[in-house]
């Protein structure tokens, strides 16, 4: 009995790894075909990606990118575990970063205190913005997909309105850049010196803490169990005593608070101010990464690293005479393959398990048992 349990476990693990691997291999094959179709040789392209991607300065770049992407992936994954599609992560993090930057620029407190306040402000802004969608869903039945998309646009408008000279922004660099007041250098987050390769964002530590918290809360706490239950079956959750409505709002708030952190590596480690060219659209990357990582904290980390790697290396391909649009192709194909591969593997796994249970029980029945079948 024990042996069989462990075998099923091992198999499940294998199946879990099989899906993303299958997807990436399929994506590489399709990409190779696309490069071939443009009349170029994919071989050197891939080998250039490998050598360039594993250079030490690339590694630092990739880790820095992945930090942001990881936070985005986790925020989206929190919603996914609840069966909520929080597309609004994008608006949540931009609004959060904006207000955090305004607050940070205005503060003249000791560094650690103002950094703490900046983080709290960012998480609170994200949470409030996400909570709007959650409350709308439970009180008015508005689909969170629709409301968060709209909230994204509203966030863009709000930022556009406030990010003007005379409102909450100023002109910098000889009047060419509109941005919030820069953070005082005391509130800059620490950087890890990686020698000639550059500097690693200290925020990677926070990202790791968020990942551990995500794993711990979901897998090891009562609250996490309730959240997963709602994600798997709302009716069973209700019958088990979980208030689904409360859970929807709560998880939206948590997802939004995590989303608030997405802009922080950029703000606290790189730009130190919110300008009109603050990165946008990271949340959509986060959706792809959450899918790729199967909402698993380690999976999301691998997905984030892969995304960073692809961005870094395909940029470099341009100098080798390849089209840089190849990045979009690879990413798109990976996401598609991932979705397909997961479903295929999931069905295969379920079927296999059912067969196994059947076979096992048949074997039990066939063996002469001392136990009477029916009392």
């Amino acid at each position, binding site marked *: 009995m024990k042996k069989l349990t462990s075998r*099923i476990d091992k198999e499940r693990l294998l199946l879990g790894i099989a899906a993303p691997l299958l997807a990436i291999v399929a994506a590489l094959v399709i990409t190779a075909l696309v490069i071939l179709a443009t009349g170029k040789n994919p071989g050197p392209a891939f080998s250039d990606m490998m050598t360039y991607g594993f250079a030490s300065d690339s590694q630092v770049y990739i880790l820095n990118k992945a930090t942001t992407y990881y936070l985005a992936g986790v925020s989206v994954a929190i919603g996914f575990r609840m069966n909520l599609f929080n597309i609004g992560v994008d608006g949540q993090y931009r609004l959060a970063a904006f207000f955090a930057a305004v607050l940070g620029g205005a503060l003249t407190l000791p560094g650690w205190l103002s950094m703490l306040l900046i983080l709290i402000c960012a998480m609170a802004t994200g949470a409030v913005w996400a909570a709007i969608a959650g409350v709308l869903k439970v009180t008015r039945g508005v689909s969170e997909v629709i409301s968060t998309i709209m909230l994204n646009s509203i966030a863009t408008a709000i930022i556009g309105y406030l990010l003007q000279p005379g409102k909450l922004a100023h002109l910098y660099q000889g009047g060419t850049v509109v941005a919030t007041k820069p953070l005082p250098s005391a509130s800059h987050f620490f950087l890890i010196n990686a020698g000639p390769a550059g500097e690693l964002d200290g925020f990677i530590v926070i990202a790791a803490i968020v990942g551990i918290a995500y794993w711990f809360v979901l897998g090891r706490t009562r609250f996490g169990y309730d959240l997963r239950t709602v994600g798997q079956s709302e009716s069973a959750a209700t*019958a088990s005593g979980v208030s689904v409505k409360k859970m929807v709002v709560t998880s939206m708030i948590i997802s939004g608070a995590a989303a608030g952190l997405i802009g922080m590596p950029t703000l606290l480690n790189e730009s130190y101010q919110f300008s009109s060219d603050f990165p946008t659209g990271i949340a959509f990357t986060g959706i792809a990464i959450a899918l790729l990582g199967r909402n698993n904290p380690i999976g999301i980390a691998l997905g984030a690293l892969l995304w960073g790697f692809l961005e870094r290396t395909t940029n470099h391909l341009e100098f080798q005479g390849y089209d840089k649009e190849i990045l979009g192709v690879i990413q798109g194909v990976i996401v598609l393959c991932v979705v397909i591969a997961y479903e295929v593997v999931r069905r295969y796994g379920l079927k296999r398990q059912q067969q196994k249970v059947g076979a096992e029980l048949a074997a039990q029945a066939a063996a002469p048992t001392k136990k009477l079948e029916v009392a």
Partner: protein
Amino acid sequence: MKILYGMQQPDEGTITIDGERAVLNNPGDAIALGIGMVHQHFMLADNLTVLENVVLGAEKLHGIGGRARAKIKEISDAYGLNVRPDVLVEELGVADRQRVEILKVLYRGARTLILDEPTAVLVPQEVDALFDNLRELKAEGLTVIFISHKLGEVLSVADEITVIRRGTTVGTAEPASTTPRQLAEMMVGSELPTPETEESTVTDVPMLTIEGLHLGQTDLDGIERVILDKVSLTIHKGEVLGIAGVEGNGQSELVEAIMGMRHPDAGTITLDGADISQRATRQRREAGIGYIPEDRHRHGLLLEAPLWENRILGHVTEKPNSRGFLLDNKAARADTERIVASYDVRTPGIDVTAASLSGGNQQKLIVGREMSHAPKLLIAAHPTRGVDVGAQAAIWDHIREARREGLAVLLISADLDELIGLSDTLRVMYRGRLVADADPATITPEELGSAMTGAATGHLEHAEDDAR
């Protein structure tokens, strides 16, 4: 059954239809060959009308408009199914839904009908009506495969009986020359258990008291439908109170009101002296309510989660599942092993998903889970529906055991033999009201059945004197 409907592929063996070898790769193939299936768990979209449900996937046959409606009317009248095409499925009771399912299959031109436990939801009178329908279908040359755990029904309706146990055919029988007992012995491989309780354990200490429960629902037309009307009942320690009734007369809502999943407009619920009317579902569970839901897939299990996570479901705040705010996965796993062993859940391990177990084993797991938290009140809604005979006997034993230990048990069932056999007190529910009560020691299923259709009210006496 799933293989015959093309939902699963056989490893070996052949299927022959009308003298021709058939390969069924999907339900579409099966439908094309005239095989129609009425599932035990209905496959209807609640938010569509009957008409829409029937034409769904078969739009090409008679369109989706007037012609389809006419065809539905025609089939409905021909077999006396009494289906109204424009009603929303969510407003229908379970028996009506089943008729829609049968009609759906006939609409697709099925020549071979598979009925999976079709009578589980019907009262005796309705079962007779269904059997008349089936005989009519048979007379017109259709083939019916009737799958049931109820021996009497199989014997009365079938022309030939095949007994399957654990995936193999154990024998065939002629209904004319077979007694129920012989058939049952073929099914279980041993003596047939009957649901009979021993001497009464009823005390006079009330455990659950319900006073004047009222629940109304306003439908889309703004008309208020009364779902529960002045329901009052008391269950004492050591008492099994059975509620009989055709499904859709408020039993599910009564259970959900007791569980706190629905909020009644008026009335109080008292458990062991404490008013729990205003408490949330979780607090009620913690107060000692064990719940075996009528639809285990929707309310009792996380199908894609492993067994040990299912063991936590509904009791996440209680030991051994958690300590403080943290889950205690290790203790929960150990306790799952215990439940699997002592409730005879047949599974290769506790890491398999709940979906891969058979219905009977899923139900035994649920019973084990609910009995593991020292409940004061056990709500058992259709505890043996869709469960094999062996598991049925085990579940009956557990309910009797619960009663002996002084639990109050609220038993809701469509199986009248089960109700009469297990209950100490019987109440009949009709259109949201408790209209009749009866003594299970003397009442017959037929007499109970007439009260379930609203024909009789008050205290039901066994009609011995005037009948004979």
